[in-house]
């Protein structure tokens, strides 16, 4: 049974908006997704009935909030195949990766040790490692090749005895490419390296099991999977959490504080300094329930079908060039493209007038743009509430682009 996107759209109040008199066609889901009523209502309910600080209150309300917070943790962690205590709540994938950079790489690796990232990464999986370079850690990148895949050959060449951490995205937010994560993880583990997978573009879109993948660390953002802003997760294997140093210091993460020295709480608390975003965790847990009801394999199937249709339609347009792998089996619902003679920004502006929201730019992945030899691309990215009619709207809006720019070209 496939997803009924039209039915699902009814769950998303924002999709009833119109822009410039046109039905709203939201195709920027790789940036952030819209929220179903159940998530919005759950947040309101939390603040109307359960709002409290957690872990320390001896009154009933605090017990209720603590219970909600820890149940959310267990639920979200189970969604990706983890145990409750293996999930650290963070703001999003960016903070998750920075936490690994500071608490694991900076604190536990030695000068000269290498982190191996890739040319396919979002800035969030490049800059945190660059910030460690002045501390003596080295950084290398696996090359892009072909139509936008990571070069397995280059990976095998670049991984060395000094490579202590391999980090790569599960799915590209520009090219759409889905990386063979478990294959990469196996090579890394055979080499004795730990593996961080950036799951920002995979957890929302396909079934993910961190154990099957063999990830030591796994990062993701709630706002890209129907959840609220300001909440996300870092999954990490328990033994790594034990050995890692704290990231931020403050309340919640301590066992005892003296003026001279302090001791740390057990993970996951050890990595959650300060009052946590309890409401965010509850909202994300609700989003996870919604996705589970849809069934992640069906979500993946739905996006695969949509991508196949979009690829076919886009490629049949004159002057349109699509980037990334051609096979929908090996890519997610993210399609970057260009229209000859039209800058992606102008394209996005014209599409906006037609009610179609796409993104233009380097999508926080300049090295990918550099590899493609462009300064920016246009990008359409899909989710559960999109269907063929949305792609038809995109295509017909591209007609308007041609009308404006084309007649002159």
């Amino acid at each position, binding site marked *: 049974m496939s997803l009924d996107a039209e039915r699902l759209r009814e769950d998303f109040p924002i999709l009833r908006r119109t822009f410039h008199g046109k039905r709203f066609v939201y195709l920027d889901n790789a940036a952030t997704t819209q929220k179903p009523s159940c998530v919005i209502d759950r947040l309101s309910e939390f603040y109307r009935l359960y709002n409290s600080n957690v872990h320390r209150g001896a009154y009933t309300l605090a017990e209720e909030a603590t219970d909600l917070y820890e149940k959310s943790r267990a639920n979200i962690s189970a969604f990706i195949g983890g145990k409750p205590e293996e999930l650290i709540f963070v703001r999003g994938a960016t903070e998750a990766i920075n936490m690994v950079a500071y608490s694991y790489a900076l604190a536990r690796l030695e000068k000269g040790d290498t982190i191996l990232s890739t040319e396919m990464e979002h800035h969030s999986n490049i800059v945190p490692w660059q910030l460690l370079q002045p501390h003596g850690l080295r950084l290398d990148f696996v090359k892009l090749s072909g139509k936008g895949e990571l070069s397995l050959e280059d990976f095998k060449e670049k991984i060395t005895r000094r490579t202590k951490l391999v980090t790569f995205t599960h799915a590209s937010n520009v090219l759409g490419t889905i990386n063979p994560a478990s294959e990469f993880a196996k090579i890394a583990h055979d080499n004795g390296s730990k593996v961080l997978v950036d799951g920002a573009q995979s957890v929302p879109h396909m079934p993910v099991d961190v154990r099957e993948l063999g990830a030591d660390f796994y990062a993701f953002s709630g706002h890209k999977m129907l959840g609220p802003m300001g909440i996300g997760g870092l999954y990490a294997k328990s033994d790594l959490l034990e050995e890692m140093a704290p990231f931020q210091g403050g309340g919640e993460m301590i066992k005892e504080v003296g003026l001279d020295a302090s001791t740390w709480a057990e993970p996951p608390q050890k990595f959650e300094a300060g009052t946590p975003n309890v409401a965010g965790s509850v909202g994300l847990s609700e989003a996870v329930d919604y996705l589970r009801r849809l069934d992640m394999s069906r979500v993946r199937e739905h996006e695969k079908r949509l991508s196949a249709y979009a690829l076919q339609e886009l490629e049949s347009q004159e002057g349109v060039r699509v980037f990334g792998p051609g096979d929908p089996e090996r890519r997610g619902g993210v399609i970057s493209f260009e229209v000859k003679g039209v*800058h992606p*920004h102008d394209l996005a502006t014209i599409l906006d007038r037609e009610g179609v929201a796409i993104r233009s730019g380097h999508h926080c992945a300049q090295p990918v743009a550099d590899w493609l030899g462009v300064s920016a691309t246009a990008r359409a990215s899909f989710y559960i509430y999109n269907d063929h009619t949305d792609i038809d709207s995109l295509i017909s809006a591209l007609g308007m682009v041609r009308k*404006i720019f084309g007649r002159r070209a």
Partner: protein
Amino acid sequence: MSDIFQETILHHYEHPSNKGKIENPDVKISDTNTLCGDKVTMYARLNGRVLEEVKFDGAGCAISMASASLLTERAKGMSIRDVIELGQRDVLEMLGLESLTPMRIKCAMLGVRTLQKGLIEYESKKPV
């Protein structure tokens, strides 16, 4: 629809005026619009305090390129002071637009802001 892509802008985007380099310019300065990736290099040759020749080079969206092109026409013959005083209103007027969203205004202002920065640097380096 899209009054933003009217004749003037499209014309200057596709047939820019004064596109290219000036050899041995008095002012040469590049800048980018981080959000968009628009890139522009502005060149000027001065005669005293007056801009005798202005050119631009770069790549970007229609708004940034058309406004740089229009600027080179407009700035030619103006004094340094007058160019430095050009503001959003002037640029919109050159483009024939009433307004732009905050995001696109940055595209429109890229050329003029860059040239102004170059002129200010030029002035500060010049022996009095």
